[in-house]
């Protein structure tokens, strides 16, 4: 193998970080060269965030050193524990959740913090020229003079990247940058990243979308359980191999037996939800979800899928049109009524809507059904029965927890979601609303959620799956509809559909234009 001629810009050697008994990073070595795009892969808890936090000065490593090339190209140790020092040394990070001041313009956000407050007016000319040069060089076209709040998510991300480039970073860390983008926007981002790398920028790309990693990155580093388990060129690697490296065992292929859909369970005719001025609203939507099928809703979040989920979950009422569940009109905003009508609801945000952190696993398990006779007698909770049934659900759904009395907030996201699944699916609902059911979950937990949804379809439930993850939608859905700016497309057979068409529709093109 030829030695890489490009100079090292960053070298982590023997980085170790312990939190009590847990070793979050175990002697991790990582070299990054100028112009290189390196993927950092790993499940939740594998140590990616800890490693990047050490690099960015939020944590101090117990052992090991971060070396960064100075202006002369010589590697020198980076003092830990300070984000300013890391920034000053040329390390920039674009977080998954942006850190922009929404009421300021893009230009103001970019220069914010780089100049003394008193000189902002004086030196804005040179700053402006520099940013415009950066835009020309990178292709990150964006309007600099409107408040950031008015920009789309993709444009806000460009501001974030420009913010880093403006600070002359030599190492750019992108944390799950495509999570909020349409496939086309993601392609645009990749083109930019390649352009920047060609000019010598080193990029660390954190993602869990393996096809993106393989398409963009020349090298893949995999962390598992705090240790580096692979560091190899992406050429010759495939998705199954990377997934196995991340999880540490073979991933069973998803089985999706054929199913014959029955009568429509959920049926929407000309349904509008949400005030006309509201961003996340639904206009005149028609949709049928039949027994024994999974209908996927694709779309960039905030385009109306929130309103659809709110309607089905009973948080919102239809403003116009007719929504029926097995022929019975769904009237009013009535979550308890939806539960009674056998709608199983998996909310988008399990911390905010799905669970009550301070209550126990058992109490969360019976949250929706506490007034049912099996859970109470004369207004007094049947605690022993509730515990026993929760313990059975813990076994059936393989929830890893100390027991039914443990506070649910102590559980990992995947185990928390299993409790929600148990609560929803054990009642054998006629309609399952799964809103971003695997967001933030690792591969193991995701596989489990998918298996459960396919099983629900198998026993004849109608499943409405709302997801931003196109891989998930295509893997599970029998039919897919796309929502954009409040308009829901007709549901199309997933078998004859390709990702690019759906991506174009997510960006607002009609099915005809997209095909």
């Amino acid at each position: 193998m030829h030695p890489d001629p490009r100079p090292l810009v960053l070298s982590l050697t023997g980085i170790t970080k312990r939190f009590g008994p847990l070793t979050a990073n175990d002697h991790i070595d990582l070299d990054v060269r100028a112009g290189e795009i390196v993927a950092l892969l790993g499940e939740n808890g594998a140590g990616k965030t800890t490693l990047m936090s050490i690099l960015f000065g939020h944590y101090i490593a117990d052992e090991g050193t971060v070396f960064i090339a100075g202006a002369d190209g010589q590697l020198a140790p980076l003092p830990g524990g300070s984000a300013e020092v890391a920034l000053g040394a040329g390390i920039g990070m674009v977080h998954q959740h942006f850190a922009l001041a929404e009421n300021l313009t893009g230009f103001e956000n970019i220069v914010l913090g780089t100049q003394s407050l008193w000189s902002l007016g004086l030196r804005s000319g040179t700053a402006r020229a520099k940013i415009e040069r950066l835009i020309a060089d990178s292709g990150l076209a964006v309007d600099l003079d409107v408040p950031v709040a008015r920009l789309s998510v993709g444009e806000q991300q460009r501001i974030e990247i420009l913010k880093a480039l403006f600070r002359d970073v030599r190492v750019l860390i992108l944390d799950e940058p495509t999570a909020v983008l349409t496939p086309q926007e993601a392609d645009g981002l990749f083109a930019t990243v390649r352009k920047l790398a060609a000019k010598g920028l080193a990029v660390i790309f954190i993602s869990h979308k393996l096809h993106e990693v393989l398409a963009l990155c020349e090298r893949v580093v995999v962390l598992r359980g705090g240790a580096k388990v692979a560091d190899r060129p992406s050429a010759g690697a495939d998705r199954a191999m990377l997934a196995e490296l991340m999880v540490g065992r073979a991933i069973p292929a998803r089985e999706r037996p054929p199913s014959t859909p029955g009568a429509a369970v959920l049926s929407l005719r000309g349904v509008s939800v949400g005030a006309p001025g509201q961003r996340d609203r639904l206009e005149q939507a028609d949709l049928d979800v039949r027994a024994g099928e999974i209908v996927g809703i694709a779309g960039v979040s905030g385009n109306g899928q929130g309103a659809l989920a709110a309607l089905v979950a009973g948080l919102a009422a239809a403003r116009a049109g007719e929504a029926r569940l097995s022929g019975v009109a769904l009237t009013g905003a009535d979550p308890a009524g939806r539960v009674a009508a056998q709608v199983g609801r998996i909310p988008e945000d399990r911390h905010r809507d799905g669970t009550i952190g301070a209550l126990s696993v058992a109490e969360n398990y019976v949250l929706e059904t506490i007034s049912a006779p099996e859970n109470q007698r004369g207004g007094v909770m049947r605690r022993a029965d509730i515990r026993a049934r929760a313990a059975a659900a813990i076994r059936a759904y393989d929830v890893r927890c100390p027991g039914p009395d443990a506070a649910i907030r102590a559980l990992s996201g995947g185990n928390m979601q299993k409790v929600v699944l148990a609560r929803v699916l054990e009642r054998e609902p006629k309609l399952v609303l799964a809103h971003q059911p695997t967001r933030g979950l690792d591969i193991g937990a995701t596989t489990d959620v998918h298996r459960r949804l396919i099983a629900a379809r198998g026993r004849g439930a109608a499943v409405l799956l709302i997801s931003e993850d196109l891989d998930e939608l295509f893997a599970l859905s029998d039919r897919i509809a796309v929502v954009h700016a409040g308009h829901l497309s007709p549901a199309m057979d997933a078998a004859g559909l390709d990702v690019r068409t759906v991506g174009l529709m997510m960006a607002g093109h009609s099915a005809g234009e997209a095909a």
Partner: protein
Amino acid sequence: MIRFVPRERTPVWLTLTVSIGSGLAALLLTAIPLALTGAPVFTAFALMAAGAAGDGFALAETLTRATPLIFTGLAAAVAFRAKLWNIGAEGQLYAGALATVALGAGLIEAPSYVLVPLVLVGAAAAGAALLLVPVLFKTRFGADEVVVTLLMNFIVLLFVQMMLEGPMKDEMALGWPQSAPVLDEATLPKLVEGLRLHAGLVLALVAAVGLHVFINRTVWGFRIRAVGENARAARYAGLPVGKAMALVGILSGGLAGLAGASEVAGLKGYLTSDLSPGFGYAGIVVATLANLSPLGVIPAAIFVAGVFVGADSMSRAIGVSNYLADLVVAFALLSVLVGGLLTRFRIVLVRREAA
């Protein structure tokens, strides 16, 4: 740099150590200003302890003082569990006291086994009705209950003064603004002959146990806990959030109203506008010391009452101002809050390397 890292679970030894440590820290902190005044620190603390629990008489006095604090402490605890910030227990206490004299001072004549329950129910209803107003304002219009309940305290107190100067004034009281005395049939019996301790204490203890069972064992208690811990998820799950809040309002206001009934019908015998030296506000301190646990309210109320009774006695003996009691309680509150931080978080010192 100091970082707070959340603990997944708190070991029992730590909870115990922190509780005892908080108490000691409160005393140590109080000792500083005490020493600055030149008072003999150990004598002062010894006199306080003796005054609070030195003999049967002192103990009875402390328990008498603790009785209204248990009620108002429970009122704050149940409301705060549901994140209903009821700062109006003082006003609800006076509403209960007003109902007690309205019903018990001659309007109705009945044997005590009818009149005492009637007076208690009336007082609880008055307190509950008073808190239901801000609760409805909160659930209907989003009005901030802190502001509404706090301001209602002044309205209620002025209303009580108006009643005592006017329609409810006792003609036999030589011009003092006080109500007619409650009938013997409406009076809560004394627990021990010759002491001020009355049956209100028993009621308060029953209320604490009852609230504990209600909150932890019943469906409505479950709903209240769920709404308090995460109202969004409770609503998503289809729990009746508005009704649960209204029930909390009824319970909290009712308990505060009982404090008023217990003070009037058990201790004072009639209503004056200085019935409560801030029992409603002190209830918030008691509930916080008890970590919002109904059973914990009992020892917390006895502690706060003991500090006040003991400080009075110490101040008479060595001439140190009894404001010292406020200091002890304030330091205890701070110590408990800091102690709570220690039990919920691990504190990690991060050494900043020279840049």
